[in-house]
């Protein structure tokens, strides 16, 4: 059965897709991870539970720069002079006295650096698992209730084109070079189908909540091995089995 996908062509001016282990300097991935895009779609659609979907990301950025940002750090602990820069009033319900207790919480405020991608052009394919959702997602992204952002909340995304496309799995008839940088999931190709000299990432896709203590949950991520394939030195060889959309864009779905 032929599948459909929603193809978005988007532009972002300066954007950060934070790597999970970078705290002091917010480092960025070169393209938005699957989880970030899935998050955007879910926000746009107002979904509160995970709807299975596959994503393909391609895109190019012009350069990278570092910029300052204001960092707030806190753990809902009491205000301590000398340690915290900000004081926030907070009232907590006290069971014993059956009343609210006034307290002051402390927040650390400071500066830090974030890596930003400049002039990022994106081509994103969204393939929902249940194909009936296509129209709904298409409309919600085309006419969003609130502005859409990809990356940090302030990283607006400008959608230049959105289209529902038919996608089809084909055997390539000749060798192709990539036209854009892309995340290519390692498992999508057999050895010998692709030649690339690129960095490998483990990027997040979706998560399940995992209980570690009473009332304490953490997110257990489903990570996907991808090449960040650069258009300069990546070729896909003939006979590779690959998804293409009706306008002959590659789809590297994961």
């Amino acid at each position, binding site marked *: 059965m032929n599948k459909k996908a929603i193809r978005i062509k988007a532009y972002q001016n300066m954007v950060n897709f934070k790597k*999970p282990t970078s*705290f002091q300097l917010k480092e960025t991935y070169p393209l938005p991870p699957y989880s970030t895009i899935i998050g955007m779609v879910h926000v746009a659609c107002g979904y509160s539970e995970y709807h299975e979907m596959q994503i393909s990301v391609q895109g190019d950025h012009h350069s990278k720069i570092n910029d300052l940002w204001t960092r707030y750090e806190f753990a809902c602990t009491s205000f301590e002079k000398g340690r915290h820069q900000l004081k926030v009033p907070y009232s907590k319900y006290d069971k014993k006295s059956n009343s609210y207790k006034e307290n002051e919480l402390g927040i650390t405020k400071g500066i830090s650096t974030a890596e930003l991608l400049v002039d990022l052009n994106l081509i994103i394919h969204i393939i929902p698992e249940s194909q009936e959702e296509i129209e709904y997602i298409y409309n919600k992204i085309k006419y969003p209730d609130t502005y859409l952002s990809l990356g940090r909340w302030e990283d607006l995304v400008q959608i230049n084109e959105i289209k529902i496309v038919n996608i089809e799995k084909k055997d390539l008839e000749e060798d192709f070079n990539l036209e854009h940088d892309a995340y290519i999931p390692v498992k999508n190709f057999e050895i010998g189908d692709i030649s690339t000299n690129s960095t490998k990432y483990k990027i997040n896709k979706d998560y399940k909540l995992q209980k570690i203590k009473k009332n304490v949950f953490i*997110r257990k991520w489903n990570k996907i091995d991808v090449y960040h394939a650069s258009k300069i030195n990546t070729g896909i060889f003939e006979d590779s089995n690959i998804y293409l959309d009706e306008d002959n864009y590659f789809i590297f779905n994961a």
Partner: protein
Amino acid sequence: MLIISTIRLEMNDWLYNAGLVGLYNILNHSNASSLKKNNNGFEFDIEELDNFEEKYFEYFMDKYQYILPYNKFESLSNYLNNFEEKYFKENSEFIGDINDYIGLLKKKLTSNSYSNTYPLLKDLDIDFFEEGKKLKKIKFKKNDTDEEKLKVIKETVESLILINSKLKEKVVKKYLCSKDVIYNIINNFWNNISILHKQNNKNDHFLQFKNDFVDTTLNYLKKDISKAKYNCCVCDRKITKLSKPESFDLVWINKIGVDQNRKSSHFWNFNNTSYICPVCNLVYACVPAGFNNYYGKGIYINKNNNFKSLVESNNISFKKDEGIHSYFDLENFTYRNILNSLESVEINKKRLELENIQIIKFDKENSLRPYTFNILSKSMINVLKKEKKRLEFIINKYIKVSNDDYISLYDATINNLYNNSLLFNLINESMNIQFRNDGIIKDFLINLIYINNTFLNTKGERGMNEKLITMAKFKGEEFKQYYKQKNSENKINGITYKLLNSLKTKNKNLFLDTIINSYMYLGKEIPSIILECNKNVESLQTIGYAFILGIQSTKKENIDKGGN
């Protein structure tokens, strides 16, 4: 039974990569036979981790042998031979040198880091601490005769030779030198655990390192973890528990990890998820070996398109004859390394465009933000490549601002280029300071003008032909000669001052007015090079500064004096 026999590691973010480079360097240094590089990382047999603690410290001791304090004492022994002869030949200098050594030796031998180690050196028949305490700098009394003086020196030298011979012993070197490594290099990058934990500072640091890093890794690899619930946040390996020694946090890495209890807002729903497996823990412990360090400063290039080039661009030798005498040398060597690796690639792949390459500089002095991040852009690489010689030339050039304040031209230039800003402000400031201090401007500033011009050219073709700059400087020299011929040399400084100010404010009219006035006074033709100033602001400044350098040039004068 071993479940995993080969460890395969893959590149990730810059810090992890630095750790990988470090681990690779250490294993490579110990001639690990099973070590294999591939595109994304490297792999090695688990047996290579036997005695890893020794390999770890050996790597540092070998690489930094000319930097670590311990090795200064070793080199002392050559100096002590034939001391009588030396004393008579270079009297005061010899005493001064010996006294310097004594000061250093005394300080180190009685230091906490060394004295905590002495109990571990069991079979030693010398008490370093006491010997260190006893050491005194050589001082003479007023009426001492040469013989008496020699006696004093002899006594001191004898005790020095004794200490020295003991210091040279293999075990002593192993323990003391590795302490230097810990407190000079490793503690810059991580702290407060294992060998750097305050409670452990009397323990055998080799054993401590083995327990905390090597054994945990080996135990982890031997365990069956197929049913483990959690995952390492870096490499996604499975982990059984979210506590030591099954998994670790990142707080111990200086200024990288966050305090999970006080700053849990970094994590989703305030629950920390950044736990790493023992293998990654070992990799992070090797971060200091990935950086190239020079007295508290370090540099690391994250050129991560493949692992081979990553290792190559960070491979710098600190051997004595390699010529690393300052941090700037180190920086320069590093850039040369990247450039060399780029050049070899470019021949193979003409289509290759330069990727952004991340440069991480480390500075111990900057306790709040020890790491600075920069990105080596295409234009920066071009400038570095084209201006290699001129940049090397300005490495040891300083502008004296006040008695204890200097501007390092190399440092300032590189910083400006990084930040993508032109060098005109630096040129003006340097000229101004030199002009105010001595009334002359040093010739080497012309290098900055050339470098800046190349930079302009790579940015947007706003620079000019280098010949024009040379010409402008020459015309300036000529200008000065005209004034001399008219016996109005005293006017030159006033004019220079005016020109400098007009360039600083980018005031073309004032600049041209001054020049036209001067040439009218001289009754000479205005050189055509001045017309170039009309093109744009950058040309005005480039030509202007070169012209001023010519006016204030000291070169011609020297020739004149020689002639007379």
